[in-house]
């Protein structure tokens, strides 16, 4: 029982992080139909930048966060400006391929600056822990969970209840239509990428604090993808649910079937879900009028 509890907790915590990364993924897809294959690598870069401030320069936690997050936004914007902007109007496959190449470039960049070996361990953010029944929750875990969940809800709020969010949803419906209303689609897309950069960075920071800061962090991209798809590629709310679900599934599978089975099991479940819900759990059905 205690084992199960531990599994559920770690699953939920990881799941919250996957959900956060998945929201960034969904945001970009929704606004521009682009599958951002470099999301996992943006996560990596954001995490490493945080490490520079916190572990290398030894600044304190709050300060490091306050610096890194805007830098994450900047990273997203830069990527959009330099690589995606020139390709507006080109076939979608080419744009998606560019994100794949982008992964290579970012991985290369990270290797050049920091090398390929894992970075020095960072001291835990907080000390102390909370006992819930028989289970020990470290403060670090609670912090990660809380921050991830908070960030996700903030993004959902942005999307659903603000003017900017409405404009983003509009852009998802049709670029030319929005242009005809005088709304600058380019600006909205840039902002979407910036937000995705922030989501990736935050996810990277949280994940790095638990798993360590190493190149393998980028593989989270592989798990955020099913999270985004299960929730529904058009639905940021779905990404939260998808993330938590995948986190749980992965955790349970690795706990009971061995470490390597986490990811494959998630994908099996994903395929099964998709057979019943082709657009994901919360995806918007395509409005087809013939």
């Amino acid at each position, binding site marked *: 029982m205690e084992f199960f509890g531990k599994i559920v907790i770690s699953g939920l915590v990881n799941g919250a992080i996957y959900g956060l990364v998945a929201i960034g993924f969904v945001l970009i897809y929704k606004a521009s139909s682009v599958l951002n294959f470099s999301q996992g690598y943006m996560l990596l870069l954001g995490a490493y930048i945080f490490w520079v401030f916190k572990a290398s320069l030894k600044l304190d936690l709050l300060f490091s966060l306050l610096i890194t997050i805007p830098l994450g936004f900047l990273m997203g914007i830069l990527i959009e400006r330099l690589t995606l902007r020139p390709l507006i109007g080109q076939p979608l496959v080419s744009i998606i391929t560019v994100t794949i190449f982008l992964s290579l470039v970012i991985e290369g960049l990270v290797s050049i600056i920091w090398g390929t070996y894992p970075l020095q361990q960072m001291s835990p953010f907080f000390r102390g822990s909370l006992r819930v029944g028989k289970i020990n929750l470290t403060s670090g875990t609670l912090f990660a969970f809380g921050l991830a969940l908070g960030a996700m809800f903030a993004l959902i709020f942005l999307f659903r209840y603000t003017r900017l969010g*409405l404009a983003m949803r*509009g852009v998802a*419906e*049709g670029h*030319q239509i929005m242009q*005809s209303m*005088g709304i600058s689609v380019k600006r909205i897309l840039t902002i979407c990428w910036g937000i995705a950069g922030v989501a990736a960075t935050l996810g990277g920071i949280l994940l790095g604090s638990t798993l360590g800061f190493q190149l393998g962090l980028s593989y989270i991209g592989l798990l955020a993808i099913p999270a985004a798809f299960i929730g529904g590629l058009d639905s940021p709310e779905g990404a939260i649910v998808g993330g938590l679900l995948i986190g749980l599934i992965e955790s349970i599978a690795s706990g009971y079937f061995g470490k390597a089975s986490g990811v494959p099991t998630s994908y099996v479940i994903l395929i099964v879900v998709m057979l019943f819900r082709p657009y994901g759990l919360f995806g918007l059905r395509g409005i087809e009028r013939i």
Partner: protein
Amino acid sequence: MLKVNNVEVKYAGVILILRGVSFEVPDGSIIALLGSNGAGKTTTLKAISGLLRTELGEVTAGTIEYDERRIDQQDSEEVAKRGIIQVMEGRKVLGHLTVEENLILGGYILKKTNVKKDLDMVYDYFPKLKTLRNATSGYLSGGEQQMLVMGRAMMAHPKIMLLDEPSLGLAPLLVDEIYEIVARLNAEEKTSVIVVEQNARAALAISEYSYVMENGRVVLDGPSSKLANNEDIKEFYLGLSKLGEKRSYREVKHYKRRKRWL
């Protein structure tokens, strides 16, 4: 006043669509652009509103001026800010959003925080929309969607509204209703309107002045009432030759009646 001077438009640098189009739109007037498919009417509107850029098109010669300032090289955002809004053909609503959300986005560029007054104005013009305010716009009927896109344009309080084929695919009664609203809009808000239509009857009825386009050129223009009685227009656009007689398709001979403007 909007002035289009000898405008030439090319797509992808090689496809010539407009070959020197000129016309004027005095403030507060309703102008009709007539012509059959492929004449270049929609392209003219897109040249004015700046949407050509999104489709690899550009104005390669001539100028378009609004209130003495050139707008043909500007992005659609800037043109919209100056008060020229295009209602594209095909009733392009933002499908998954509700009616009200569509309308709010229509007024986005005005950057107002309180849009209630504008919403009420639109609902006043289109009572049907009010009952549908929370409906998903993609599932509305054709007529309702047309009302929505027009209302959406009105939210931006345009000085000139470019209406592209508002009657496309709508029932005749609905077409009359839409055009009544256009007339009311012109009278009350003093919005100039350029109507592009294949439905010549409706367009001639509502406009003061009309231009007929063919193959990228303006071939005929004049006050709408005069054009409605023009023999060529009657034959080729209003189908009014041989009224009352049965038309046998064996007798359709183009050369028998040449268009006077060629």
